[in-house]
């Protein structure tokens, strides 16, 4: 049904091209192991020193019917020899393991991009399942791409003729054939994956051997058949000197929490209820018990939060993690922590809403929820990491602020950075600051009045942490309004005003304790692009390009959403226009308008997908009223330009 590329003599006559930047997407059925293939390619690329950024895209269904569109799972990785900030708008290379994967992902592939397809899966039945009337490999519809049809399943089976595995298990190895081909194509070593397989299947050596054999077969297929005329090289990125690892957002979040636990001497207690996309944090911490971490899978979101508050009351670092729907359930308990002024870190790994929404798709639409979604006047600090690796730093910050100010702190991550990975320069342990919570001791007891749990630190306005078991500190706290100083129940009108003011002032004072907002680019100008959270990568790409094109545009990124950095008003006042791209309908823009009365230009997007550099770039031109430069698109793949190949 397909024409193979004519055999070519081995390697010698092939061209070797050096690329600065390439985006590869592995797409297949959810049973095809695409996440694994993608992460192996990423890890290997990280180890040889590329900068990289990844974007997994998996279906909500655990096992949707095989071969169908809802069952398609994909993993995109961008590797580069320079500093990058996003997994790329569109792939240069698409590996499609079946017709459904092709159908769902082809629209993103850049013209002239490389398309590797598993022809064995292009049966009439599978084509029908994917909604194809005709075989796209035969009807000329792929003419814009460089198509490499490969019988992945057939070659895998042939490679494993002597393996003791059954056919089904053999077929499961075919993703490694594709991986081997990509390793060859992009000149990557196979050692790291081979070692990983040997370890992973230490107890099932026949599986490890089969996958390794198929991986090598993929490499050899390219080497021998000459299916590909070009090989590519992506040189190591010029990153800051240091020791690096690849890290995912939720992993970094877990590491940041543990690091803060160590630096504060407070054992970490996580109360959580499984929810996408936050569950990985529970899994990650549950596997770190040797760090003194206790994880509690509660009966519901409410109990998860309450248990964390109970642990905090006892002197532990209480943390709870969820996504929007779970945060809604925790609201009442978070408010209790506001009232009793105990530490609590609430991680919200946001997903597309409202209601159940799109659990596996990303969004930033819980900002107003965490700021205002509780009864009464209930201010809490809110921080937001800007990238997967930044989750480490901001988790550490969330803990620091919570313990220092005796206040629940919300950390807003999202599905995009939770599951995305990038290289992370590992900070030396000594470089992390100590966190010293202020405990009440027996000395805190006043001779006449006894222990006063609501006497505050003059600078932070935090009350002391009075831990049960400390002699002389017996006291009662609760959700009823507290009398100033004594903490007794009070309905006094003036006291309620005072306590409300104090709780607000305490949070406001955090602004004195966090970095100022930094501007990248000129400190004044026509336009400031102001983002928060996971949009940073795309914003950097778009703004840098616009700056190179000569526009007066700068950018700044908020990692602290409440309180805002103390210089925010000055920063906003330094630009004629402010553009706020966010994956919601304009929530930060609303807050900024209310605060500054400035006409903030909102750029909302709620498609369950991150911003693309290109759309931001175009928006910048639109806002500034400038005509887009010619050839402003990034449409054509840089790796496809030299020769175009038609399969027919």
């Amino acid at each position: 049904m397909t024409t193979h590329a004519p055999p070519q003599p081995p390697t010698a006559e092939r061209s070797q091209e050096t690329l600065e930047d390439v985006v590869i997407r592995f797409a297949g059925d959810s049973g095809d192991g695409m996440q694994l293939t993608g992460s192996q390619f990423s890890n290997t690329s990280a180890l040889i020193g590329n900068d990289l950024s990844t974007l997994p895209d998996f279906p909500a269904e655990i096992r949707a019917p095989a071969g169908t569109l809802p069952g398609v799972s994909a993993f995109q990785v961008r590797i580069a020899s320079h500093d990058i900030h996003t997994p790329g708008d569109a792939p240069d290379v698409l590996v499609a393991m079946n017709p459904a994967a092709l159908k769902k992902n082809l629209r993103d592939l850049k013209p002239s991009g490389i398309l590797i397809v598993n022809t064995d899966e292009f049966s009439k039945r599978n084509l029908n399942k994917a909604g194809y009337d005709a075989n796209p490999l035969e009807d000329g519809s792929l003419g814009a791409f460089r198509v490499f049809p490969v019988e992945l399943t057939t070659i895998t089976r042939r490679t494993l003729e002597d393996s003791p595995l059954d056919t089904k298990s053999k077929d499961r190895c075919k993703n490694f054939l594709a991986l081997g081909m990509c390793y060859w194509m992009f000149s990557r070593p196979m050692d790291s994956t081979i070692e990983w397989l040997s370890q992973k299947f230490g107890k099932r050596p026949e599986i490890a051997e089969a996958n390794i054999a198929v991986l090598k077969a993929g490499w050899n297929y390219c080497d021998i058949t000459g299916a590909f005329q070009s090989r590519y090289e992506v040189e190591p990125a010029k990153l800051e000197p240091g020791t690096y690892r690849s890290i995912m957002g939720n992993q970094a979040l877990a590491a940041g929490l543990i690091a803060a636990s160590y630096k504060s001497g407070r054992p970490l207690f996580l109360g959580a209820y499984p929810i996408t996309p936050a569950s990985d944090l529970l899994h990650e911490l549950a596997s770190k018990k040797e760090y003194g971490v206790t994880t509690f899978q509660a009966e519901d979101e409410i109990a998860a939060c309450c248990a964390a508050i109970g642990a905090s009351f006892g002197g532990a670092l209480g943390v709870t993690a969820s996504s929007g729907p779970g945060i809604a359930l925790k609201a009442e308990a978070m408010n209790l922590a506001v009232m009793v002024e105990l530490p609590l870190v609430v991680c919200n790994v946001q997903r597309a809403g409202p209601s159940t929404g799109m659990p596996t798709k990303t969004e930033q639409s819980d900002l107003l929820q965490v700021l205002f979604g509780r009864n009464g006047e209930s201010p809490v600090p809110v921080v937001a990491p800007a990238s997967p690796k930044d989750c480490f730093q901001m988790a550490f910050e969330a803990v620091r602020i919570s313990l220092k100010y005796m206040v629940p702190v919300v950390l807003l991550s999202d599905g995009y950075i939770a599951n995305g990975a990038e290289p992370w320069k590992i900070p030396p342990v000594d470089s992390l600051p100590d966190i010293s919570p202020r405990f009440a001791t027996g000395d805190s007891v006043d001779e006449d009045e006894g222990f006063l749990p609501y006497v505050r630190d003059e600078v932070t306005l935090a009350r002391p942490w009075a831990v049960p078991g400390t002699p002389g500190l017996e006291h009662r706290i609760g959700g009823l309004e507290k009398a100033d100083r004594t903490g007794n129940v009070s309905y006094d009108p003036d006291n309620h005003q005072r306590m409300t003011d104090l709780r607000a002032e305490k949070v406001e004072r955090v602004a004195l304790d966090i970095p100022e907002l930094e501007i990248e680019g000129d400190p004044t100008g026509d336009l400031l692009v102001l983002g928060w959270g996971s949009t940073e990568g795309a914003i950097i790409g778009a703004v840098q390009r616009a700056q190179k094109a000569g526009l007066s545009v700068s950018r700044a990124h908020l990692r602290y959403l409440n309180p805002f950095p103390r210089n925010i008003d000055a920063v906003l006042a330094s630009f004629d226009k402010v553009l706020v791209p966010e994956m919601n309908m304009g929530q930060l823009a609303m807050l900024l308008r209310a605060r500054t009365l400035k006409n903030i230009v909102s750029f909302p997007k709620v498609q369950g997908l991150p911003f693309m550099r290109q759309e931001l770039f175009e928006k910048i031109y639109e806002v500034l009223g400038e005509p887009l430069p010619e050839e402003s698109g990034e449409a054509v793949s840089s790796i496809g330009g030299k020769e175009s190949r038609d399969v027919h």
Partner: protein
Amino acid sequence: MSTDPIGGGMGSPVPSNGDGLEVPKYNLKDFSSDQEVRWCPGCGDYAILKAVQGVFPDLGLRKEKFVVISGIGCSSRFPYYMNTFGFHTIHGRAPALATGLKTSRPDLEVWVATGDGDSMSIGGNHLIHVLRRNVGVKILMFNNRIYGLTKGQYSPTSEVGKRTKSTPMGSLDNPFNPLALALGAGATFVARTVDILVPHMKEVLHRAAQHKGTAFIEIYQNCNIFNDHAFTYITDKENRQANVLYLEHGKPLVFGDDQDRGIRLNGLEPEVIRFEDGYGPEDCVVWDEKAQSPTLAFLASQLLPPHFPTPLGVIRSIDAPPYEELVNQQVEAQIERLGRGDLGELLAGGETWEVG
């Protein structure tokens, strides 16, 4: 963790947890806070408060080791009146909060005060889960079969047909049987007592205090404002002997004014036998609170008026490792196996590379 309950030694000053200090001789007053008690005059809660304040001094623990946690409702004002650490939390959530506290601080003596609305309605989920986990907390469930603090709506333990402000034509929903619910959730210690039977209540509280794991105690408590006389059938001096069945481990189930009646089993059906008909204590079920199977306990929970006397005392008391012990054993086992986690190693993760 249990030996090092709040971690420490990792960078910041650690408060004392009171371990190793001498236990003074306490009395009831030591456990009374300076707060004016504000239940309605005549409320059954007063007797429960006095009983608890009377029992805590006997438990051989320093005062600062006690934590009383409550939810919302009349009964949940309890912590304010106890001179211990106290936490008046949110509606129904006390067991969840107590679970977090006890799990991270097994050295503390954690008691929960809750009511029938707090624990059986809005907090029903947390109650069954704390019971199935067997967290080492003592739960005092004040059952007055009415919502008091919100002024008199029917509760999940109100009898069918209850006329209240929210059910002017009578309530329609069947009540929970708290003992059966607790047993169904796998509770390892279940007991029932009554507010006015102070010595009995104190005895039950002592037993609960000795139990490792969750202790669930239903306390019949009279709300003299909104549901007065709810328990008169067992609290009136005239009726009491006839209508109460005191459970005693190893003793036959005998009751009545002159100890002249008993409970026997006919197949799986309990029935009342009268000794005047030629039966004797030897024909009665011998009470076994330690039976591993909850069957007998469940059967006792189903002895309801008017056909049966109301069982009081310990319905079930079996040994099972408490949750906090198991959780901390896992942490200790990992530390034992892998050594105390090294932060540098954690940050480095698996594979790293150098950029020079």
